């Protein structure tokens, strides 16, 4: 019997696995952008600017890394931005009332995680498609936050707390250290734990995953809770960096986070993608926006450029993936 239905010719990058090749191309693209920008503008390569890019990218990454796990299961979490706003306002209130940054940080993380858990319950127990469940949650969270804040701004936090978002350690911004830590944790979780493998399996085929004995509902609950908790973490960094909390700080966060996930090569159909890819996606997105600022291109063009990059990245992914199947 001949047993292999199709003998696909080895792709040119066969020395790398498919995922590794995708990452390699992305890093190459990021490098290319850096070279072009350093030629076009000498201040791009200044230490201050590079640290600034990393700090910006880290804020997008925190939200996008949790979101990546959700997207790996073929779901979507549209509530992350609104979750950041509510968590930041609650954490800010607690710090103001108690004077304890630790309690504030805990509040932010717990609030974010609770919102994520509620998303998970809607998706699993109530069987609402994640797109709709988290879209509804976005409005609910906005409503709660606007009612709670009533137009007020919480302003001025202890200096120690403000170090988290604005401080430096050994010449690097603290958020960059946090970025490295969570990049490592996220990558280990996704690639080197049983839960991570199960998440990939669920995204690749949820029916087969369930019939293979994977507790799909429990894993989905975990994934949405992690996504919410990461939004909670991001809320702390925002709070610390902005030194204030308002009801509307989350509004411009969700779509860039989704863009970072997609540019990073995670498929909306689930089962394909990496946390590291999302980091590179956040980096590319930040580099381009930073470059446009440096080159004094009108900020109004930024959404258009972001959109084009997302479309091209996803299109290239689908093209190479089709070639691989």
């Amino acid at each position, binding site marked *: 019997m001949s*047993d*292999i*239905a199709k003998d696909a010719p080895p792709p040119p990058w066969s020395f790398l696995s498919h995922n590794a090749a995708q990452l390699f191309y992305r890093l190459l693209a990021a490098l290319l952008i850096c070279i072009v920008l350093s030629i076009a503008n000498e201040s791009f390569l200044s230490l201050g600017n590079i640290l600034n890019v990393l700090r910006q990218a880290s804020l997008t990454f925190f939200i996008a890394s949790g979101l990546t796990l959700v997207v790996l299961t073929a779901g979507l979490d549209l509530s992350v931005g609104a979750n950041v706003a509510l968590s930041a306002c609650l954490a800010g209130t607690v710090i103001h009332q108690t004077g304890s940054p630790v309690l504030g940080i805990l509040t932010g993380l717990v609030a974010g995680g609770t919102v994520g858990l509620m998303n998970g319950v809607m998706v699993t127990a109530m069987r609402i498609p994640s797109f709709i469940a988290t879209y509804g949650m976005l409005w609910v969270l906005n409503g709660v936050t606007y009612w709670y804040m009533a137009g007020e701004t919480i302003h001025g936090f202890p200096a120690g707390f403000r170090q988290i978002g604005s401080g430096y350690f050994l010449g690097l911004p603290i958020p960059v250290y946090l970025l490295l830590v969570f990049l490592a944790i996220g990558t280990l979780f996704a690639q080197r734990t049983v839960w991570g493998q199960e998440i*990939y*399996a669920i995204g690749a085929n949820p029916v087969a995953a*369930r019939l293979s004995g*994977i507790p799909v509902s429990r894993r989905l609950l975990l994934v949405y809770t992690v996504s919410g908790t990461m939004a909670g973490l991001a809320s702390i960094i925002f709070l610390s960096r902005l030194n204030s909390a308002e009801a509307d700080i989350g509004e411009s966060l969700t779509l860039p986070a989704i863009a970072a996930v997609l540019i990073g090569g995670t498929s909306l159909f689930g089962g394909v993608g990496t946390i590291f890819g999302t980091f590179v996606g956040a980096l590319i997105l930040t580099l381009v926006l930073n470059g446009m600022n440096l080159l004094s291109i009108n900020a109004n063009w930024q959404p258009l450029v972001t959109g084009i990059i997302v479309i091209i990245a996803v299109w290239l992914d689908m093209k190479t993936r089709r070639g691989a*199947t």
Partner: protein
Amino acid sequence: MSDRAVGTAVSPVPLLELRGISKTFPGVKALDDVSFAIYPGEVHMLLGENGAGKSSLMKILCGAYTADAGEVYAKGEKVAITSTADAQTLGIAVIFQEFSLVPFLDIAQNIFLGREPKGRLPGTIDRRRILRDAKRVLDGIGFDIDPSVIVDTLGVAQQQMVEIAKAISQDARILVMDEPTAALSDREVELLFALIARLKADGVAIVYISHRMAEVFALGDRITVLRDGRRIDQVRPADVTPDQLVRMMVGRTIDMTYPRHFAEQPGELVLQVKGLSALTGISGIDIEVRRGEIVGLCGLVGSGRTEVARAIFGADPVTTGEIILDGKPISGEPDIAARRGIALIPESRKSEGLALLRSVGDNLVVSALKKLFPSRLYDPNSAQRTADGLIRQLRIATPSARQMVGLLSGGNQQKVVIGKWLAAGAKLFIFDEPTRGIDVGAKSEIFALIDRLVAEGAAALMISSEQIEICHVCDRAYVMRDGRVAGHLARSELTEENIVRLGMHHE
């Protein structure tokens, strides 16, 4: 085998005649040189086991499949059916068991879907005319109902009427019906039979697929029996008995090159199912499986076999009854069943058994992750070693464990599904049509594998539509009918005839 022509009293020119139709799929000859003619005003019964070729023939008639060889004549002229549009032009309409109606449109819209009468303004539909025309069609088949009723609110029998009305409105002269009474009550069956009589009188020919002997004899003008894709015989109901028909349907051949090693003494009880019922339509199921046994679960497609397997595995919720594994009751989701050592090898391997875009290795270890990595830390190298071991043990033909599983042949994909449960250390294997879509050589390998599993102390429950496979492989078998266990056959009673007899209706 006699191939005598059976004349017809109705008309000498057939509406449609098939000559020497053949259709081959990879690994299986679905139709082999099948000829038959359909005359106006006759009810032509099509009889055969699961997999005999009835559905393939039906799909060729409606243009969903194109025959590899053979000719089709309509009223004596040679024609070709290469698309559903061709079939429609020739006046052929098929009423499938799964209706093709749009649930949220009304009856009139469904009848005229895609050919609505145009209104005065461009892009609009003449609503009054569509209702009037629909009413006329419905009256024509004696179905008294308001054509503006939404289809979703109708019962099965009424939806079937709408399907028939739709076919008639397209000037169908040949109506192919696939087990039309399967979901109808006695009263509804009477109404359907009255309609069939009426259509017959109008000269419509009806090709009627049925598993109910009483219907075959009550309605049929002629009976064509298929087996293994071949036409076995064509008879008139008056000339045969039900037993003769059953004998024509069975007697398939099988190429089995491996011997089954039957255990002298069945081992201890592994699975005990008591009075199991589920919302999926099974009720009062009692089944026992012992160590070292392969127990068959047979019956017609749709008799509830898959539903029993899914209920035991926890894939569908159980309403009443008890499932006892190794003396202890079990209930809950599939992850609990898997942890207790039950394995389900589902019928649709591609959609339910595998993640096609993932690698062979990933698929092989997916059910064993917790067993292989009790610390919950995943080690890709160790996973790869486990996968390589299974690939060697099961002789899975793949360049490496990294190959995408969707690129393997059906037989090798099936080995991957079985392999993942070997890795998980399962002790009760439930196989749902384990050889579906697998070529002959690979089938023997799969059976040898199942034989070895039970010889080494596992237990197996095997669903198959291939009676001959059940007879050849199983220690004993349960036969299902209409969601219940209709009977049990010990090894000595395990013949195709007995399986078919128990599985069919003899009302």
